[in-house]
């Protein structure tokens, strides 16, 4: 929690600089949040180029709306994460509309051995592919936890669901991901 608070404090400070017209403000936000946002968008979208575009749109939107964000009302990092989530979902819809949805692995045809474990060294690409088969409603909270390191309460706030629902959705995402990876 201390780390999260420090991150929030630094993000608030950087945003203040940005609102005062200092370009270094955004540069600091890029360094602070860019890596985890890219990881989040990459896992969400399953494609590096789309993730980079969505990340760029996230920061462009952040610039455009910096003056509207009031740190006293809500968390700066939460606001930025919400922008990134929306950009990611928008990219998914656009991709769907343009007919370039990614191929997703087929659902498991038969249940894998429940006692078998994932033995091999997992490649990130395998996880990315498998993640695309996890329904978006489950994928988003799961990735907010794994990539953005948000608490269940923060995820609940950002995704408008209860903490219990978040816990259940994350578990379901993990179970599905595990099945897809194993299959």
């Amino acid at each position, binding site marked *: 929690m201390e780390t999260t608070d420090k991150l929030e404090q630094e993000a608030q400070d950087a945003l203040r600089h940005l609102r005062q017209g200092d370009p270094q403000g955004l540069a600091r936000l890029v360094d602070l949040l860019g890596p985890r946002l890219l*990881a989040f968008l990459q896992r969400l979208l399953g494609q590096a180029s789309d993730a980079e575009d969505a990340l760029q749109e996230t920061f462009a939107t952040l610039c455009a709306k910096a*003056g509207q964000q009031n740190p006293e009302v809500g968390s700066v990092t939460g606001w930025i994460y919400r922008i990134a989530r929306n950009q990611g979902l928008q990219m998914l819809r656009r991709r769907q509309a343009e007919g370039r949805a990614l191929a997703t692995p087929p659902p498991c045809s038969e249940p894998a051995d*429940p006692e078998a474990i994932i033995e091999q060294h*997992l490649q990130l690409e395998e996880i990315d592919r498998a993640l695309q088969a996890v329904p978006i409603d489950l994928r988003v909270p799961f990735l907010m*936890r794994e990539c953005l390191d948000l608490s*269940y309460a923060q995820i609940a706030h950002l995704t408008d669901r209860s903490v219990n629902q978040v816990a*259940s959705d994350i578990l379901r995402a993990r179970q599905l991901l595990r099945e897809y*990876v194993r299959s």
Partner: protein
Amino acid sequence: MSDPAACQAFRLALSAEFDGEVPATAGAAAAYDPAHDTKCPACRAFRHDLERLRRPLREARDQPLPGPLRERLRQVAVAGPRRRSHDSPQTAPLDHAPGGWLAALAARPLLMAGTGVGLLIVLLFLAVHGRSDRPMAPASVHLRQATLAHGVLTIDTDGEAILSTAAGRSLRLWGGPGQITIAAFTDTEVDLRQDRGRLCARWSSRSPIPFRLQAGLCHIEVRGTVWRLAFDPGNESILEVAEGQVLLVTPTGRHDVPALRRVRFSSDGAMIASEAFNPFADPQFQLSPDQVVVDH
């Protein structure tokens, strides 16, 4: 074989514990037996796999941004924040916006979000006097079944080109075959000439900028974000609007073309026909009804 309900309760609690959370409800806490997996091989395997799945995700999260991407993002910062702290949200100008109407639109995020894609102006000039011949290339170009050489972009039938400015504004062109010449593509000036063929265009970014498109004898002003121009210098040309509104100014007069209309005009600018256009039936557009927004 363990009781499925016990396994589910265990996994729910394990997943939460794995995330540093406590079981959300007293009921869940009571149902949680931490020693469950000593008796249940399936849940033991589940615990093992949770760790296996997390490791690559965490490693990726801790990777620094690739250098070129980091620079690209920081260039958005160099372009400057679009709103200053002393500006009210209703009056703040966009640094790049040449007209108050664009700033006014940008200050209405709901409208921007409602249209989903923003506002595009295309100016088609009768002559190109005063244009710079100095090529100002896009900051980045993504091509698929398309070529770009000496500023001439050629797009095949199934090809596409995504041209991006330094600050990340991207224009997607597809729906060929067609050819355009890029005279300039920067955050302050986009100047294109459609040489032949047919192309669709759409800004991918939320902050599109005005740009000019030269294609023969007509002056076209387009408000909207999805349009297609089939330009044949010696014959009939076709302008189709899927989103937004188009003002077509030809030597014969001014013609408003709303979304879902198609107009045909001759190379000398004479109007030939105006008819309904259904982008939903057109595989090149792949629009859903909620994507079509007429922006007056």
